């Protein structure tokens, strides 16, 4: 129970502390702190319109967060969500373009499959490099991000480039018929449902299945997992695949629900923000949902800040960065707060 209290109290305190630092930053820029904070709230959760904006941004965050959270449960720190999302989106676009004209349901399903498989394979490669060649997974996944973005640029500036896109080089469109619709009369696209369902599903897998149990064993102590005869390498690669698949799905959704074609909007930073979401949520797939909504809200408010206070677009990125550092630092506090502990150090 005290663990649970701790995992709520510490991130909350860290968020409050980050807001304090951010307030200093805002005051330094010559703005009224309370007004800016109120505007962030307004832009994130103040109206139904801002809620829709927030949820649209939260959907990919939920999925990219899983790309860090799942492998982390098996002890791997992977920051390749950005690359997996780009690869997933790119492959989904390729599928969409080549199948254009076939029944939309079939096209969309194929796009989802190709996004999931390619994103999964992308991160599974990280897991395989780690297991078979002992390559540091954090570094290899980071480098794979750059490779993914380079491949994206190579294709949208060359082979796939639609000559009609002048300002922002993009691929050919996947076709309006193949776009994912919105939920009811809102502007929220169906990607949110994917995000919620996948988070819920993976929570179930982690908590209720023998697979999840094995993963927690490996993440908790790999030697204990080996001594129990678990196929550690295989399980790590599968976990990486699942994480990459979630990020790949995020890429597919961004293409099929928002942009309709592949361009640099695919690497808008959802993958990196997902790492932050996963850290705050302590790698718990269910906790990812509210945290993604919170971070999505902060991102959604950036437009309003720009319009009302003439603050640059990057302001919310500053806040996000501050939160990131404070959350990382707060990790050192876990297990040290005496009032959450029934007893002290074992003598």
């Amino acid at each position, binding site marked *: 129970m005290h663990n649970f209290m701790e995992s709520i109290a510490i991130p909350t305190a860290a968020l409050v502390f980050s807001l304090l630092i951010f307030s200093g930053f805002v005051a330094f820029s010559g703005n009224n702190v309370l007004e800016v904070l109120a505007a962030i709230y307004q832009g994130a959760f103040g109206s139904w319109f801002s809620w829709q904006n927030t949820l649209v941004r939260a959907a990919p965050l939920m999925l990219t967060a899983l790309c860090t959270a799942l492998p982390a449960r098996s002890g791997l720190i992977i920051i390749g969500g950005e690359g997996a999302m780009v690869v997933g989106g790119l492959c989904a676009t390729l599928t969409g373009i080549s199948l254009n004209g076939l029944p939309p349901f079939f096209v969309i399903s194929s796009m989802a499959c190709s996004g999931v498989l390619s994103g999964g394979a992308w991160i599974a490669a990280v897991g395989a490099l780690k297991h078979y060649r002992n390559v540091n997974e954090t570094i290899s996944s980071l480098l794979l991000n750059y490779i993914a973005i380079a491949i994206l640029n190579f294709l949208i500036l060359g082979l796939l480039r639609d000559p009609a896109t002048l300002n922002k080089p993009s691929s050919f469109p996947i076709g309006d018929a193949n776009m994912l619709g919105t939920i009811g009369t809102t502007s929220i696209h169906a990607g949110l449902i994917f995000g919620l369902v996948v988070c819920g599903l993976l929570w179930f897998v982690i908590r209720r299945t023998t*697979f999840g149990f094995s993963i927690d064993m490996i993440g908790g102590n790999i*030697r204990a997992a*080996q001594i129990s005869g678990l196929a550690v390498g295989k399980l790590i690669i599968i976990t990486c695949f699942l994480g990459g698949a979630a990020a790949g799905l995020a890429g597919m959704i961004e293409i099929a629900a928002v942009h309709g074609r592949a361009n640099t909007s695919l690497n808008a930073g959802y993958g990196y923000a997902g790492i932050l979401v996963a850290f705050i949520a302590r790698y718990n797939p269910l906790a990812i949902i509210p945290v993604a909504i919170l971070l999505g809200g902060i991102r959604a408010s950036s437009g309003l800040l720009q319009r009302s206070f003439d603050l640059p677009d990057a302001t919310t990125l500053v806040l996000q960065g501050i939160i990131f550092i404070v959350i990382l630092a707060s990790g050192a506090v876990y297990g040290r707060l005496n009032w959450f502990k029934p007893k002290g150090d*074992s*003598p």
Partner: protein
Amino acid sequence: MNTVSPYVLEAINISKRFGELIALDNVTLKLRAASVHALLGENGAGKSTLVKCIMGYYQPDVGEVLFGDRQQAITQPHDALLLGIGMVYQHFTLIPNMSVAENIILSRPRLPLIIHWRKEMAELKRRMQGMPFQIPLDAPITSLSAGEKQKVEIIKQLLLNTKVLILDEPTSVLTPTEADEVLGKIQTMSREQHLSVLIITHKFREVMNFADEVTVLRKGRYVGSARVDQVSPPILAAMMVGHEIINTPLQRIPTTNPRPLLKIADLKVTDDAGVTALTGLSLSVNSGEIVGIAGVSGNGQRELMQVMAGQRAAHSGSITVNAEAYTASRAQMRRHKFHCLPEEPLRNACVASMSVADNLAFRRFDRPPFAVHNGLLNRKAITQRAKELIHRFAIKTPGPSTPVGNLSGGNVQRTVLARELADEVDVLLVANPCFGLDFGAVADIHQQIMAARNRGTAVLLISEDLDEILELSDRLLVISNGKLVHETTPEHAELTTIGKFMAGH
């Protein structure tokens, strides 16, 4: 010690609590100058907490620490160092990739900004003359054996002009010969060089042979102090556990129809650095037999254990169990009833953050009744089974959902024992089962291993404690430099011969 020397360090009426837990309750310890004082108690008796209060890691809630007749405010370990109180920890605090000399020099509490290495080295060489142990100063720490590292730790403290030396379980990583050497030297030094030594231990032999006085703690309380020449091991045992120890002798039942269960042929393994650790090792273990592998730490025992347990891949050679090739997969472990009691159970066989119930389920969580419908966990069955095992193996835990990392060392070991020995076992692999355990737990574990053998289990026991091997084994093998160099039986064993082979001559 015939003359009575004054006290140099006194901890008076110390109490310390951590939340609900009372770690120390009104404990007093008085250390005389130029003597060796043993602090005796079972795991969890509060020995380490008391010493940490003296060293300034903790502040006692009540009580005071007197150093040389004066009350001293030791609020942090640095203060203790400056007063001349030094401590050697149970686990080494050396920097592995630096040399002995660098480690010694860097440990000084007040280092100049720029170190004049040549001058320091000359000074160090000069002062090493007066040291009880000689260690090559330019050797990297990684090349040293556990015994040598312990010696470096002690030298490190002595060179800091330590007046009071505290040793926390100093012999837990040493061979019996090394332990005797180190403690013997310490004893001589205390007399000749006016060094006061406090040794934390739970081994009577060390108290009786090397200490002048002893203080016994039990469950955080002060039980008593005495001169060692006025007590005997049975008295100490009774003080330590609160009642007489009845040590049931091990019952060895003759084995009927032994059949070879475990066979290792020409096994070659490399260690983490890529150096050959096992150079073609072959052995076989029959049902109802305990084969003990004796040897000095670092001669390939760990790698052998790791290969068998699936923590390391073999370079070449074969392991067969029940005449089938064995690769330490989960299916094979289950089929051959192959179980493991590795050394340092918390490090090797438990997930500290997972509950006792989960840890007890590691072997069977993916089988009915613990798993249903091809892969769903049945938490109820896991908890139910944990309750049974906790009861049967007398694991002291607040409950099945407590993280196993919160238990004491003995209870972690018991948890692993319960998991590995509760079901039928055909092949059992045991490594240093008694590292850091008190003697009540040791006797219990020995009984369990013998009982498994008597039920027909083939036991391979790898231990650095020769007494343990002599007591348990049916057959004894000596490992040296990754090879088995000697085979005998405990009845025919000659300690000098075994010692020679252990040393690699």
